[in-house]
């Protein structure tokens, strides 16, 4: 168990059995030899996330999604809920210990991310084990792989497991056991660049990963492709989309001219190799209709990938955001590699805005301090706000703020208000010498007039808010009313009962016996001392039941008891008359025992009082035993 504030790091938590299809064969050797049992063969599949990531798996991202901040000294990371997830699959059979997940951080244009592509299991083991029919695909050139993707030697250091104490965090991150898998990226974000982080599957890509080279202690570029290269590719891509009948549309041509001008401004001449190279690595498709003639080979190559949903956007001729550029336009010669993306998010690295710079830059003071004069500090990515034309609020030394208020007569004016949060400590009202603590009963009691003649509505507002909040919660209203009924009213009645008298004494006794059911107790006590028949004196007596119309069959309409009963139950009237004539003895009751003979206290009961019960019980036991015997098949 991890103690509070600590956490434990583990190299890896590997599942006992990696995902995949297995054949289980059971054979049995018998003794003595010669006997044999057929071997049993069973097929089983261990499944897990493969082409998509379940929504509950990613617990947190760093840098935060869509965040802008100074992230240039930290490696991006994703935290996964299942501790074994990075080791549940194999890159290829030769590498049993390497994780199959890698977090790749790509700047704009360094890849193309397309969503909702059909799953392609060519070359992968167990092609039928798939958790989804569609996947997100990241298409990158070999150049990007060799520069940005992790090498096999890096992979063991990019995944680890943390065991943390869940009670230490406010939100617990939605995890259940405190074991989390963390996948790191190997690229340090650089200021001014927009990145997309992709959690990719390396399954089957063991041969694509770069080899290690001798490291250097510094780096120069911040992106694989220059901004101009990416922009030029984006323009070409737009042209291919507007390409009709073998000619470019006028708009596209003029746009291309503009963008080439933009490119040549941004880059020294000769630095950009615009596409148009003769041979694309991916051959154009053979099936083409007669209407389209091939133009740029790269355009055709892009055309065969058309119809995909482009993630990101190409706006104008000079800005590309996200991974939206078809890699064919950037490097037509390159071999393209497609990776399955399980999760992706984007962020922008800026100069400021990490936790340290944010909390360091907080403007501190007591509540009531106005922000420093001048325009409010602008945050990166937002335009500076216009200077406020509102007059500053008037705040007194006591923390009161002057606010606009409309008086009850409808006149607009000003009033003082101070909320519960004050810059100075306020002395609390305490009970006076006689122990009386003033209690407000209405909001108007708390209205005050300030020294300048304006009204101070602070406490009146508080009272009204409390009243409205209480009335908006039915359970609280019910609780308070119940409290009043159970608490106040008995107390009030007890106050009355301090007057001596016999009725009061009886009531006090009832009250003391059972305070909780006081109202019932009072009623019983009242009736007991007044006499049941005198209850009418307290007021009109409500009939116990509303009398129905006369049906002409009851005793009231003249029939005798035997005929009414016989008629009602469909019995023979003669038998009913006989039973009624015989009295209670016929029903099995002992007529000699009357209610008055029964002792009133249990302690006064003797063995004789139970004789009838005992006889009845033994008769019942006998009959039960007889029935049991019958059920058991015995003859009686």
């Amino acid at each position, binding site marked *: 168990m991890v103690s509070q504030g600590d956490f434990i*790091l583990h*190299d890896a938590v590997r599942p006992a059995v990696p995902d995949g299809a297995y054949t289980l064969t059971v054979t049995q050797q018998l003794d003595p030899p010669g006997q044999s049992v057929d071997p049993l063969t069973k097929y089983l599949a261990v499944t897990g996330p493969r082409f998509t990531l379940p929504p509950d798996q990613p617990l947190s991202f760093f840098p935060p999604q869509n*965040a802008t901040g100074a992230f240039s*000294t930290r*490696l991006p*990371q994703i*935290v996964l809920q299942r501790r074994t997830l990075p080791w549940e699959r194999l890159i290829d059979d030769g590498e049993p210990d390497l994780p199959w997940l890698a977090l790749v951080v790509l*700047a704009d244009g360094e890849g193309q991310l397309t969503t909702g592509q059909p799953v392609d299991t060519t070359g992968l083991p167990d092609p039928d084990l798939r958790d989804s029919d569609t996947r997100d695909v990241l298409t990158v050139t070999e150049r990007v792989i*060799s*520069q940005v993707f992790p090498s096999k*030697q890096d992979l063991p250091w990019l995944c680890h497991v943390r065991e943390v104490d869940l009670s*230490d*965090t406010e939100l617990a991150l939605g995890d259940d056991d405190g074991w989390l898998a963390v996948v790191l990226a190997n*690229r340090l974000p650089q200021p001014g660049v927009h990145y997309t982080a992709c959690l990719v599957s390396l399954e089957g890509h063991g041969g694509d990963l*770069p080899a*290690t080279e001798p*490291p*250097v202690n*510094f*780096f*120069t570029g*911040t992106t694989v492709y220059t901004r101009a290269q990416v922009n030029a590719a984006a323009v070409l891509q737009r042209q291919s989309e507007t390409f009709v009948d073998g000619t470019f549309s006028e708009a596209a041509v003029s746009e291309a001219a503009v963008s080439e001008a933009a490119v040549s401004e941004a880059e020294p001449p000769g630095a950009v190799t615009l596409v148009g190279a003769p041979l694309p690595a991916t051959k154009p498709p053979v099936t083409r209709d007669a209407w389209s003639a091939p133009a740029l080979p790269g355009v055709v190559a892009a055309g065969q990938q058309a119809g995909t949903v482009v993630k990101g956007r190409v706006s104008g001729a000079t800005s590309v955001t996200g991974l939206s550029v078809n890699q064919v336009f950037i490097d037509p010669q390159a071999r393209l590699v497609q990776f399955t993306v399980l999760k992706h998010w984007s962020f922008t690295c800026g100069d400021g*805005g990490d936790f340290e710079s944010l*909390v360091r830059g907080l403007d*501190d*003071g007591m*509540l*009531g*301090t*106005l*922000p420093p004069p001048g325009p*409010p500090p602008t945050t990166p990515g937002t335009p500076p706000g216009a200077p406020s034309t509102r007059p*500053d609020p008037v705040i007194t*030394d006591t923390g009161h*703020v002057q*606010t606009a208020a409309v008086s009850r007569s409808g006149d607009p004016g000003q009033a003082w208000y101070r909320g*519960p*949060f004050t*810059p*100075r400590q*306020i*002395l*609390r009202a305490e009970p006076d010498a006689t122990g009386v*603590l003033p*209690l*407000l009963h*209405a909001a108007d009691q708390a209205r005050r*007039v300030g*020294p300048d*003649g304006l009204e101070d509505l602070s406490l009146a507002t*508080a009272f009204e808010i*409390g*009243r*409205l*909040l209480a009335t908006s919660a039915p359970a*609280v209203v019910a609780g*308070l009313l119940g409290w*009043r009924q159970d*608490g106040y009213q008995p107390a*009030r009645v007890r106050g009355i009962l301090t007057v001596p008298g016999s009725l009061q004494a009886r009531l006090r006794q009832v009250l003391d016996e059972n305070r909780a059911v006081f109202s019932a107790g009072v009623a019983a006590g009242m009736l007991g001392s007044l006499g049941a028949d005198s209850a009418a004196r307290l007021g009109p007596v409500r009939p116990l039941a509303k009398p129905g119309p006369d049906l002409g069959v009851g005793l009231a309409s003249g029939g005798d008891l035997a005929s009414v009963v016989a008629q009602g139950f469909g019995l023979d009237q003669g038998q009913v008359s006989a039973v009624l004539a015989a009295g209670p003895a016929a029903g099995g009751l002992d007529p000699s025992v009357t209610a008055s003979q029964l002792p009133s206290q249990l302690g006064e009961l003797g063995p004789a009082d139970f004789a009838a019960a005992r006889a009845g019980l033994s008769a019942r036991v006998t009959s039960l035993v007889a029935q049991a015997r019958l059920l058991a098949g015995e003859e009686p």
Partner: protein
Amino acid sequence: MKVTLTAHDALGVAWDAKQYMVQPSGQGGTGLLPDGVRDWLAALRLTEGVPFQHLVVDDRLLPPESIRFFYLDRNWTDALVAGALSVSAITTDDRAQLQALYPQVRDELDAAERLVRVPGNEVGVDGPADVVTGLLIRSRAVSGWPAMHVRAYRTEVPDDGPDDETSRLHLMRLERLAPSVLLALFDGVPAVVHLEEPRSGLQFGFELTDPQPPAGLAYELPLRTPGTGTETGATVPVPFRPGAPGVVDLAALQASILRAVGGNGSGAEFALEVLRFPYRQVFGPSEQDPSFDELFQPQVGIEQIRTWPDYTITVTAAEEQAEGES
């Protein structure tokens, strides 16, 4: 087999159940108020449910990227509770009863409000009321780092030391009122307040080399002693993949760490070296301790209020205090 329930069983269950039965409100419990009402009123005392524009009346009192400290006005919260209690008083008689009970009710709520927020690893402490203070933060640090730690201490504690449990003030309420607005209430007057980066998302990282080489960007890694984790003061340069845009060669980094500080070369030791500890911002006394006047600059000073025509009518406790301090 047919399952039967005998009268004996039923009686036994009923007898057992009796001890779990809820006592009628107003008696049998530990306090004067019914439990549900007491809990609700205690949370109300901590301004739970009070509209934000009544907490901070003007948006300029809490500008973006600011932190504001305050005292909780107990008269205000008492008035809030009085308003809620007035719902139950219907007749004059009820009001008289409520008035008689009110000191007791107030004391009971003073104890209950300290138990509103008691996380699993803390022991709630009740008792008579103390001064309640708090802070409001409006910042992107609140929205971007959702599990930020907020701690307040009664006495000064070392900035980088371990958590001092005895000096730490009980956190009575910690809530995000809006994605970027955080409210915290403390049980007592803090000497220092710590804001700390959430530990759940600790990252791996390096530091920029100072000065930077002319050829390009370079990073370095401050080393820690394996086993103890104390910083050695030495650094190793971070190796990068040649020709790549800021891609760290982690295998080479691990090898150079191993050469520099030794150890067993495990992944845990590598993580110990590369892990960046969470940043902790301390709000507390500084070398030049600012006077209260620097922390709070009202538009209308107490001197000016004294010149108002009806000043003698209402000398509130606050003004007395303000007078005492100035």
